[in-house]
């Protein structure tokens, strides 16, 4: 065990701290900051290498070598100070790494700089109404008409589609090919005629996801990343980035501390909730798991740094465990408040802007999204433990309701 990052990194940590001390007050906070402040902050972060850190300079980034520990220190210090680490979203997290790996030079030059500056927003067009966990069964198609792709008919679960400038999408371009080989990865301007975005309200009451309808939407042929029919491979390069960004044990630890504060603050029948031993035992069960996930995260980091071979399982379980844990943390927050934990929106007596209630539902969405817990368990068992796959089944039909009357 050696948890020290070494002198070079401790120097770097001090640099980060002094940046935060000097500039932290400019960081956008909560919902009140204007867009320009967000963009200015993003530019400042890129300039100092705290955002777009490893993006080459020719594409507008800071151009540093990848360094897990430095990235970690940035996350740690900004997290501790509760200062924004800049913009995120599917463009920055998913599209940019994909383009860097598999995009053409022209694509890199056109799309990466505005994306990392926050001036070009992206949405992801993967899911369709009928595919769910079985992404590769998608049927939205793009057909070639002279120098354009012509796209029909629909994507779903598209977050931020309403504000996005562009979509990166998976579409079927070779309908005759096997399921995984007929897919291509296209870049679609959202102002192209024929695109209609309809919001899907979530259980939290907020819009978040959308349906996106395509009616003969035309985009130039060279808006493809990778080759025709290779979209599945391109998307999988991106998916691995997505999974990595889902769970942050430091955010979970911060939330746990807020739960402790909540238990100190709220009362029931005149007694502080933290003084209730049954509630405290429940809190401590959660603390065991929060600590365990923090330690697991350090082990995964160490595995990446040192190429330890035995951290595959520690990595595979993160999505499952961290989303379930966070959901339970939020659930306990609600219980601590009792009936106050039912309040929502702009209710009188609302605590913490309703964040416990909202997160309780949001993290149920996280459990479901990006591979439900059931899919995660399949992955852990098959990829992690090498257990045998399910035997292939014949195609099964939904039972048809008997027709009314007639023979």
């Amino acid at each position, binding site marked *: 065990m050696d948890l020290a990052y070494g002198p070079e990194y401790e120097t770097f940590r001090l640099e980060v701290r002094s940046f935060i001390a000097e500039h932290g007050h400019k960081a956008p906070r909560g919902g009140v900051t204007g867009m320009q402040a967000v963009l200015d902050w993003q530019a400042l972060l890129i300039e100092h290498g705290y955002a777009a850190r490893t993006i080459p300079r020719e594409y507008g980034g800071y151009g540093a070598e990848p360094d897990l520990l430095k990235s970690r220190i940035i996350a740690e210090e900004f997290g501790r100070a509760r200062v924004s680490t800049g913009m995120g979203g599917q463009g920055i997290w998913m599209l940019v790494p994909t383009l860097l790996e598999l995009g053409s030079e022209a694509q890199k030059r056109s799309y990466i700089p505005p994306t990392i500056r926050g001036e070009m927003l992206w949405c992801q067009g993967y899911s369709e109404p009928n595919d769910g966990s079985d992404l590769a069964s998608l049927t939205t198609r793009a057909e070639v008409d002279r120098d354009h792709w012509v796209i029909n008919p629909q994507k779903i679960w598209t977050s931020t589609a309403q504000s996005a400038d562009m979509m990166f999408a998976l579409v079927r371009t070779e309908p005759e090919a096997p399921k995984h080989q007929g897919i291509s990865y296209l870049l679609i301007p959202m102002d192209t005629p024929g695109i209609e975005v309809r919001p899907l309200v979530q259980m939290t009451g907020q819009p978040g996801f959308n349906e996106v309808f395509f009616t003969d939407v035309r985009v130039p042929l060279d808006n493809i990343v990778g080759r025709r029919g290779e979209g599945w491979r391109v998307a999988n390069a991106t998916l691995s980035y997505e999974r990595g960004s889902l769970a942050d044990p430091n955010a979970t630890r911060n939330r746990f501390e807020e739960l402790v504060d909540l238990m100190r603050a709220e009362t029931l029948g005149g007694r502080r909730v933290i003084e209730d031993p049954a509630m405290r035992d429940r809190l401590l069960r959660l603390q065991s798991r929060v600590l365990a996930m923090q330690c697991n995260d350090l082990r995964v980091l160490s595995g990446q740094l040192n190429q330890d071979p035995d951290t595959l399982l520690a990595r595979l379980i993160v999505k499952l465990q961290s989303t379930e844990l966070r959901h339970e943390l939020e659930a306990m927050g609600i219980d601590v408040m*009792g*009936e106050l934990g039912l309040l929502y929106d702009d209710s009188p*007596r609302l605590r913490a802007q309703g964040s416990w*209630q909202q997160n309780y539902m949001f993290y*149920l969405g996280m459990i479901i*999204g990006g591979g439900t817990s059931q899919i995660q368990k*399949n992955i852990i068992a098959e990829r992690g433990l090498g257990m045998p796959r399910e035997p292939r089944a014949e195609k099964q039909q939904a039972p048809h309701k008997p027709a009314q009357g007639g023979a």
Partner: protein
Amino acid sequence: MRFGLSEEQQLLRDSVRRYLADQAQLDRVRLVADGDEQEASSILDGLLNLGLAGLLVPESQGGLGLGAFEAAVVAEALGGAVAPVPFIGSYAMAPLALNRAGSPAQQEAWLPRIAAGDARLGVALTEFSGARDGTALRYAGGCLNGTALFALDAGAVDAWLLADSAGQMYLVESSAVQQRLLVSIDRTRRLAELSLDQAPAEPLPGDRADTEAVLDLGRVLLAADSIGAAQAMLDKAVAYAGERQQFGRLIGSFQAVKHLCAEMVAELEPARALVWYAAYAQDALPAESRLLACHAKAHTGEIGRFIAKTATEVHGGMGFTDMLGLHYWFKRLGANRLLLGGPEQLRSEAAQVQGWLS
């Protein structure tokens, strides 16, 4: 011997269910949840026409003179349809309070009007059932002062039934109370915060045991409502799993999905029996009624949360959006879990009832 519903009780259940299926479909629930008062009172009127208002009012006062078990049968049906109507407070706890603890004059004044659907009471017992914060009700000189939170079945009521921390109940005309509606995750029922400033209040002659009985009834009916809501979520999950295809198969043919559904039903069936028994005990088994009310509500609180989450998971992304409206049941279960006391509190009371506290 019959553990379950008699034929009359089945008829009652079926008539409520049928009415709700016809008149309180999801699109109307949505309207009420979004604040449509007219829809709300139209749905309620139809229910009152079925006799729900007088369910617990004695026949001598114009009611049906039925008991807690029948009220639980109704609550289960209401929960199953996330019916956006007042019931547990206005038409169960309030009549029971008047009946057990009210003076003859108070009974005369209110029970016939409640049974006829001409009057409705809201119920604010939280100061007694588990006060949060520094709220309190103080009675002096014929008046109540202070604040009561989480009044049930709020809105257009004629009077309020309140309890203070000692378990003394009071009636206060609504005009003397300042009502501030609270916004709950569950939009199908209304909660309010009440402020009383020298509000003329009539104490009910009954004692603390009566207030406990009213609270117990409320808890049992919240539990019954949860059983109905959980059953609906389970039914929807099973139906969805039988229609939705993934990887070339019905998702209901995956063992993982099947087992989630089996785990839900394995929790739900015994919980339903427990709630029925607890409701029966309110009328027939006074020695067990408090303990069973605590357990019925604590246990449905736990399994309700499990089923709400699991049924949503079976629906995948569809469960997380508003499209199927599944979240109305999810949130109703969430609210039922905490109203009138959460599981830990109820278990602690159950320990007390059994003399296990040090």
